[in-house]
């Protein structure tokens, strides 16, 4: 019988939540790395027992961890992230030039085919790769050295590369997103990159339709349609059907189109999920009601999913990497909150139950569907 393993990164450690395919009873294992910020942990699609985790604190900096047994044991691997060549500058918050400085790893994306190959999105924004299971990391410097790099400016949370999507039909194609530079695509395995932000409109930057400078919060893809991407921008929910060449807004009837995560149903490529948040100055749900919104039409038309979610006095946030889906026949949807709850729905979002309620603030949620 299939089972699921939910990997949760929090402000104070990592937790591993497991259940059988019914997803009714859960075991909570952790904290792993207690006291450390775990921005992200993720398993290899090619070997589900191979996990990677990004471990960080302001005191001791960045550590990287690897597990070969599904998180039962861990070993520290290389934590040396050094930019290639001359680092140059990006823009600081006040628009002045600021040298690139490595701060942390935001996101890990294991290769679809090789357990030893992992991509890492870091702050200050750059992409690194290991091909030896984390023993060494090397920058794909073509991204940071894109001609627009000197114009990139950090979002409120830093200049982080937070999203990496691998095209399952084309090993040379990847999509990434950076706050607040925008989305980029490579068609040559990361050697060169193209900004893919046409159609985005951001009223908070000097040129609302600039080639770069948009605060993209998250992008998502269904593996069967790699040319279609969905985006939760700072404001606006967007989609593209031509691999990012053009974006159109699909916010439709959402109560607010500000938010962080966005994800796609495992078996329905036009069914997508967002968690509307009041505004960029009020990082909590409108009216104190925690509602996931689902569109079965690829955007424009949205329905509120509330069953099992708190509908009064709820003022948590859901961060960009804190939503995921499983691949069981009845698609499970999961998200974690800054209040420490991890909610699960075993029926595509119709009804929700908390797996755990009192973890540290949740930074990331990933799901593995195990045979």
């Amino acid at each position, binding site marked *: 019988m299939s089972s699921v393993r939910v990997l949760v990164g929090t402000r104070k450690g990592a937790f591993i939540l497991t259940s059988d395919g019914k997803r009714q009873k859960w075991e909570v294992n952790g904290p792993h790395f207690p006291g450390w910020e775990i921005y992200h942990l993720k398993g290899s699609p090619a070997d589900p027992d191979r996990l990677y985790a990004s471990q960080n604190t302001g*005191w*001791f*900096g960045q*550590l990287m961890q690897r597990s070969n047994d599904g998180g039962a044991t861990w070993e*520290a691997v290389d*934590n*040396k992230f*050094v930019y290639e060549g001359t680092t140059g500058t990006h823009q600081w918050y006040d628009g002045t030039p600021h040298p690139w400085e490595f701060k942390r790893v935001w996101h890990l994306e294991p290769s679809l085919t090789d357990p030893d190959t992992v991509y890492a999105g870091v702050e200050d924004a750059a992409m690194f790769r290991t091909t030896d299971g984390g023993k060494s990391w090397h920058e794909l410097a073509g991204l940071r050295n894109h001609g627009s790099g000197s114009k990139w400016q950090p979002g409120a949370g830093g200049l982080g590369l937070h999203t990496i999507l691998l095209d399952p039909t084309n090993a040379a194609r990847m999509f990434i997103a950076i706050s607040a530079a925008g989305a980029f695509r490579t068609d040559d395995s990361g050697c060169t990159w193209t900004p893919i932000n046409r159609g985005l409109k951001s009223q908070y930057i000097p040129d609302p339709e600039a080639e770069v400078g948009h605060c993209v919060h998250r992008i998502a893809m269904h593996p069967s349609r790699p040319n279609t991407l969905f985006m939760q921008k700072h404001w606006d929910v967007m989609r593209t059907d031509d691999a990012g060449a053009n974006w159109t807004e699909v916010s439709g009837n959402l109560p607010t189109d500000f938010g962080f995560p966005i994800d796609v149903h495992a078996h329905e490529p036009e069914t997508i999920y967002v968690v509307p948040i009041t505004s960029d100055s009020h990082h909590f749900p409108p009216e104190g009601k925690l509602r996931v919104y689902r569109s079965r039409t690829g955007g424009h038309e949205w329905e509120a999913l509330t069953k099992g979610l708190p509908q009064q006095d709820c003022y948590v946030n859901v961060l960009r990497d804190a939503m995921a889906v499983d691949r069981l026949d009845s698609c499970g949807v999961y998200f974690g909150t800054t209040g420490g709850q991890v909610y699960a729905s075993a029926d595509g979002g119709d009804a929700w139950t908390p797996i755990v309620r009192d973890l540290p603030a949740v930074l990331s949620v990933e799901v593995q569907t195990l045979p």
Partner: protein
Amino acid sequence: MIRVELPQHLQTLARVGREIEVAVEGPVTLGAVLDAVEARYPVLQGTIRDHVSKKRRPFLRFFACQDDLSLERPDLLLPEAVVRGSEPFLIVGAIAGG
């Protein structure tokens, strides 16, 4: 042997107790002790000093014999009591929170 006290998280990482001992060849300087710690426990590389610049991480402090050595140069000779092993060299996580 030079005695070195580590903060809790670094003890966990290195899988050691509060105090470790390292051998230092040549002059026992601040930098030589840190080099020896990192050589014996590679997992601590990058956690006390930056990998490349070797600058102390901002929220860590170095003490010996009740003196704060955090802002001293790497070639500072450590006190004789540390060299003899009668006093430890302290790596301390700055108190910050709230």
